[in-house]
């Protein structure tokens, strides 16, 4: 059941290519160097935009899961799975970029004091368990239901874990809020917005590609069964 309002895949791929190229060019050549962190701060344009895109994927996966539970349409189950899959891939990238930044800035590959990194580690473990669950049940309505319910748990876990990590940090040493509104304007803001848009479009393109592949796969299997 093709939906007519969808953007065609080639157009999406082309715009993702243009936006990512533009974002890379702007991050390296247009955005000014950060006053006290210098060149290495530029990784944040990718780190933050990938993190937000990953959240968007998890939220999208949960939304599709919810739709599956209300409508019982196996298509939503597949869409939910693909969205979560993209989210986990992006989550690994968040962990990697965060680690690189921590190494350059603090000299350690891992920092428990970085909220965002720790949260993504928890989410990574959670969504890995999602895949374990999914691959340990035979395909069918039951697998779709179990996966959907667990994906819904994910969106509840994100804010709860975030609060928990903040609380845990308080315990070891009090949080000093240095978020006095960083100098966030001009080219920095423009570059960030371009990078964010690029990541969102790229993730959506990859989501559509994977979904198309998966749909083709199941269609092929159906045809084979008819022939056999």
């Amino acid at each position, binding site marked *: 059941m093709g939906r007519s309002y969808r953007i065609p895949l080639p157009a999406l791929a082309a715009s993702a290519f243009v936006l990512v190229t533009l974002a890379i060019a702007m991050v390296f050549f247009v955005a000014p160097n950060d006053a006290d962190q210098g060149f290495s701060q530029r990784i944040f344009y990718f780190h933050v935009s990938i993190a937000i895109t990953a959240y968007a994927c998890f939220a999208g996966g949960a939304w599709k899961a919810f739709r599956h*539970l209300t409508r019982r349409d196996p298509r939503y189950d597949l869409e939910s799975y693909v969205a979560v899959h993209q989210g986990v891939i992006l989550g690994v990238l968040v962990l990697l970029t965060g680690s690189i930044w921590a190494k350059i800035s603090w000299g350690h590959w891992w920092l428990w004091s970085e909220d965002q990194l720790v949260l993504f580690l*928890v*989410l990574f*473990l*959670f969504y*890995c*368990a999602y895949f*374990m*669950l999914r691959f*340990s*049940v*035979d395909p*069918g*309505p*039951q697998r779709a*239901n*179990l996966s*959907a*319910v*667990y994906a*819904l*748990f994910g969106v*509840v*876990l994100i804010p*709860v*874990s975030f*609060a*928990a*990590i903040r*609380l*845990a940090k*308080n*315990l070891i040493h009090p949080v000093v809020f240095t978020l006095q509104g960083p100098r966030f304007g001009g080219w920095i803001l423009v570059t960030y917005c371009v990078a964010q848009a690029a990541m969102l479009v790229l993730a959506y393109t990859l989501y559509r590609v994977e979904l198309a592949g998966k749909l083709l796969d199941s269609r092929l299997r159906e045809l084979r069964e008819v022939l056999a």
Partner: protein
Amino acid sequence: MTYARDVVALARKDLLLELRARDTLPAMLLFVVSTFVVFHFAVGSSPSRLAANGLLWVAIVFTALLGLGRAFVPEREQRTLDGLVLAPVDRSTIWVAKSIAALAFLGAAEVVALPVYGLFFHRLSGSAVAGVVLADVGICAVGAFLGAIAVATRARDLLMPLLFLPLAIPIVVGGVGASVAASPGRYLGFLVLYDALFSVVCWATFEFVVTE
């Protein structure tokens, strides 16, 4: 009111089963005490207060896992889950009753475990005990729910800890905070929030776990 009556009947069934067969509670008790002894040899004779509290929480989470992993196994093995799902009751009563039974087992294990912990390591403060009680509610609510999921899969016992531990991380944060922080109020509040939030989600979605 029929809802409450159904829950009581189902929980009574689980407790009665345990009273007659006694296969979960003795295992949990033995496990938690052995864990303390292993910890003693792992961390030395006088661990710091923070470290000893960490041990307590690790022991509680794993002991709970031991019981919760088994919660739905008899229902599957004896094929009684199908009967429960077919019974003319709200499906969420099955989850509520299982959580209550699991809470009873975990509570009974802790009635022994907490004094033993006090004897072996440090005395527990009142807020630590309050933290344990609040955490138990969350552990059992989420754990019984995940037990029902895990039992429907091929991996079963293997999957249960993998599903449960990421969700237990906030409980451990709240529990450890309530045990060691100078002002435990916010940690206890956080545990209440966790219990309420996840109980509602479990209650609303349990139907989908047991039906197709």
